[in-house]
């Protein structure tokens, strides 16, 4: 049974070209500035600094809580004399060595896990055993095995990076869609080439998350190890700087050391990892 025709009439419109309506407009300058992450985060830091200064002035005890201005002065003095920068450099060199070795081992372990059943069992067992173990707890053992050199620090750093990164990378590999895997096999990719060209790029968001976590653990562990362990061959790192100045009750220099730890963390997070994300997973639409 068809409907009766509607009382409204049909029509057609000829669409003219729209010239006087702009289809895109730029955001106003204020909104565009606010889009910049570093401006917003910088404002947060400034507010925190002001709060700190206010509390320190209220306490009025230089030994317990130096003010923001005093810490800034100590930081400036340390930077200008080259002492802080030298210690930072020593710490970073050790960190990078341990980080890279940790990445290589995590990659090897995960590739094994992806290809064989034994590898899977090995990965899950080792990770559940060693991941909860704090790296600092291994430091005395490392000192016993590797002596007082850099190697014990590197051992402890590798332990702190390896398990978190391996877990994240493996989870990322498992999350690669079946269609993408089939497409890769369709091209004739097998084995290591398959892992390199299909699995790693597809799992990159998880891998980057693992790298960030691994970096945070490693940096934390390094400073703590240097606090406990001290100098290697007469040259100490940033943790040793903090430890020494605490002993001599230069609390403003302690705060300056801590501030440098924080600043380096912020810099690596925002400069290195954010840029890496922007150039890879965000550009590819794999992560918002």
């Amino acid at each position, binding site marked *: 049974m068809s409907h009766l025709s509607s009382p409204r009439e049909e029509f057609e419109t000829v669409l003219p070209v729209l010239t006087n309506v702009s289809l895109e407009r730029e955001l106003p300058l204020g909104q565009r500035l606010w889009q910049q992450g570093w401006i917003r985060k910088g404002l947060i830091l400034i507010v925190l600094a002001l709060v700190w200064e206010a509390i320190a002035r209220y306490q009025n005890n230089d030994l317990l809580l130096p003010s923001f201005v005093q810490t800034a002065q100590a930081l400036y003095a340390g930077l200008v004399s080259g002492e802080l920068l030298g210690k930072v450099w020593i710490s970073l060199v050790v960190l990078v060595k341990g980080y890279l070795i940790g990445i290589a081992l995590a990659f090897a372990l995960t590739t094994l896990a992806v290809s064989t059943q034994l590898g899977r069992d090995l990965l899950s067992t080792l990770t559940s055993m060693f991941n909860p173990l704090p790296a600092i707890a291994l430091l005395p053992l490392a000192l016993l095995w590797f002596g007082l050199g850099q190697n014990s620090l590197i051992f402890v750093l590798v332990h702190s990076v390896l398990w978190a990164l391996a877990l994240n990378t493996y989870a990322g590999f498992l999350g690669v*869609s079946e269609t993408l895997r089939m*497409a890769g096999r*369709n*091209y004739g990719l097998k084995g290591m080439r398959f892992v390199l*060209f299909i699995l790693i790029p597809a799992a990159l968001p998880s891998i980057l998350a693992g790298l960030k976590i691994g970096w945070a653990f490693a940096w934390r562990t390094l400073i703590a190890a240097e606090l406990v362990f001290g100098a290697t061959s007469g040259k100490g790192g940033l943790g040793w700087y903090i430890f020494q100045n605490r002993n001599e009750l230069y609390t403003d220099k302690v705060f300056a050391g801590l501030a440098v730890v924080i600043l380096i963390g912020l810099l690596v997070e925002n400069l290195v990892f954010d840029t890496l994300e922007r150039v890879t997973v965000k550009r*590819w639409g794999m992560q918002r």
Partner: protein
Amino acid sequence: MNAPLPGHTVSKPNATAQALLSVDNVSLEYRTPQRVVRATHQVSFEIDPADRFVLLGPSGCGKSTLLKAAAGFIQPVEGEIRLQGQRVDAPGPDRIVVFQEFDQLPPWKTVKQNVMFPLLASKTLKRKEAEERALHYLNKVGLAAFADAYPHTLSGGMKARVAIARALAMQPKILLMDEPFAALDALTRRKMQEELLLLWEEVRFTLLFVTHSIEEALVVGNRILLLSPHPGRVRAEVHSHQYDLHSLGGVAFQESARRIHRLLFDEGQSPETERELDFADIRIAY
């Protein structure tokens, strides 16, 4: 015109040339955690060069599984699949598959790099020649302007076109398509069917196409294999070379569609088809 259906499962080979892809008595099974399920049972068919062969059937008839077996992802439990006489036992770049899902394109490569990817990964061509060939096929599918765009910025139809360009750029022996247009909206689907036929006119590739739509099968294919479900077995093979996108809605087209529907969903023998009345059949009664 209305010949009775062939009583056996393989269409009579009337050409003397060797078939390009021959599926011979293939049974496929797949494992779930609880049991092993037989997806297809003793299916046989042959595809000739420049055929547009369609596998049509309801869900559960194993058509996608058959396509994956032809691509080499699944090993047959019984029977064998041969491509130009050689047995298919692993996936390879001479049988490129166009999948249904949108994430078949690696998102970390631009459109042009995606089309070049199989050429470089299979070491078929050097970088410069691969780039030229990629741009040539991107031109054919109408996406030359988007060569440096990333897949996540493209619409569904454009992604399907990139996947087709990527498959064609390998110049494979056979192009395998697993319901490639099923995830697209109806208007884009029509356009893509038309473009596929135009591409075929130009390039004359051999196509194995899986679909669940009777209309799509009649439009796109020149031979349709009907599979009935649980497990997949060959029900019939039907000609459809006489139809294209302009035949939609025509009388013969509708008749074929009804016949296919009856074959797929009705049990038992097909009724005797009516003979067309001829001039000589008319007797004038006084």
